[in-house]
């Protein structure tokens, strides 16, 4: 059985145990999916503290509504749907562009660098990653959301359709426009150097 099918199956088992009032089981679901939800939220709102608050709201909403979860859907897909809605609600209230760049993220970038890269290349790749992070934050939220799910989270268009309840052609167009906008910004950065 492929690994993701096994994960799906054990997620379903953890959901059943959670419904039977086994809170430890929901704790395991948190451990499995916290990273994905925090990262998606962080890149949607651009601030780590806000991202963790939104991820917390996502898991608590999922916990309260667990009895409405449809077993024919993946648990991760359901969580992504709740998280994207929470992020868009937050953006509607706060308006995009008001979030500040998170200094914690710079630390995690430093931690990410492996030792086998030369300093010149390291600097260049780190700069590209930083610029890409900033450029993603400048995308309109709906394009940002589609680009993140496709290229950062690595989801298929079928999964994205289920998460966002938007048809595949619209999603492909949003991802395409997001890519074009980001490539223009990175190309402009190269020309300025």
């Amino acid at each position: 059985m492929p690994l993701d099918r096994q994960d799906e199956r054990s997620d379903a088992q953890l959901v059943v145990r959670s419904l039977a009032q086994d809170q430890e089981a929901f704790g395991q679901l948190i451990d499995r999916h916290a990273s994905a939800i925090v990262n998606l939220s962080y890149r949607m709102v651009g601030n780590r503290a806000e991202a963790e608050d939104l991820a917390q709201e996502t898991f608590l909403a999922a916990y309260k509504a667990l009895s409405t979860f449809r077993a024919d859907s993946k648990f991760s897909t359901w969580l992504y749907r709740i998280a994207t809605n929470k992020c868009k609600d937050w953006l509607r209230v706060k308006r995009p562009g008001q979030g500040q760049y998170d200094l914690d993220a710079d630390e995690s970038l430093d931690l990410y660098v492996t030792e086998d890269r030369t300093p010149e290349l390291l600097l260049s790749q780190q700069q590209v990653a930083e610029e890409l992070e900033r450029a993603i934050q400048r995308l309109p939220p709906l394009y940002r959301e589609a680009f993140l799910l496709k290229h950062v989270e690595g989801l298929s268009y079928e999964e994205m359709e289920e998460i966002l309840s938007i048809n595949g052609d619209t999603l492909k167009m949003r991802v395409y426009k997001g890519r074009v906008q980001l490539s223009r910004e990175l190309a402009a950065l190269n020309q300025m150097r």
Partner: protein
Amino acid sequence: MNEHDLVIQRFLDHELSPEERTAFLRAVDANSDLRRRWLNLEMVAAEAAQLPKIVPSAQFLSRLKAQVIPAPPSLLARLCAAVTAHRTLEWNFAGAMAAACVAVVAVAGLLSLKPERIVEVPVTVTPAQTASFGAPSDPKVFVRLILVQPNAQSVSVAGDFNGWNPAQTKLDRTDGGVWTVTIPLKPGRYEYMFVVNGKQWIADPLAAEDAGDGFGSQNAVLDVAI
């Protein structure tokens, strides 16, 4: 979106056939403008895929879990709970026989002590248990089957134990769309499937083991032992 943009888009989304991919790569090789536009978009996708992942903070995880996992109760609370808890009697043949034996020995002991008072006490435990569970060589174990199907109208189970007749064993719906049934089974190995809404046959997603049914599907396998 012009023709070049469209084909780049489909290339990045892995939607081109092998022949179309070959034609696209030839076009890229021959057309420097197309090559530059493609590489710029390809770089964005590649860089995005390897953006660093944030590790959720320990405070975040502990704060979140504290809201869904209650703190362990104090010793006093656990003691009170143990004394006042409702208990469900789980009945099986071996236990019933043991209880019956204890009852017979106790009655015999009392008879030997005070026969004039105890002689009319009816010893009905053993026949009642025998009628419920069959001969002593035929013990049964109660097995609970669970399926989560919030949208189902009905769920039943068909398997070796009921002649693969789903009408014979229906599951009851509980809160949250969880369907359950408890059935008495003799020790042994059984194959079964759930039947949703009377027509959709599905294997038990929680079964510890599957077995091919000879028709291309998988039955769930249940091993019952005492």
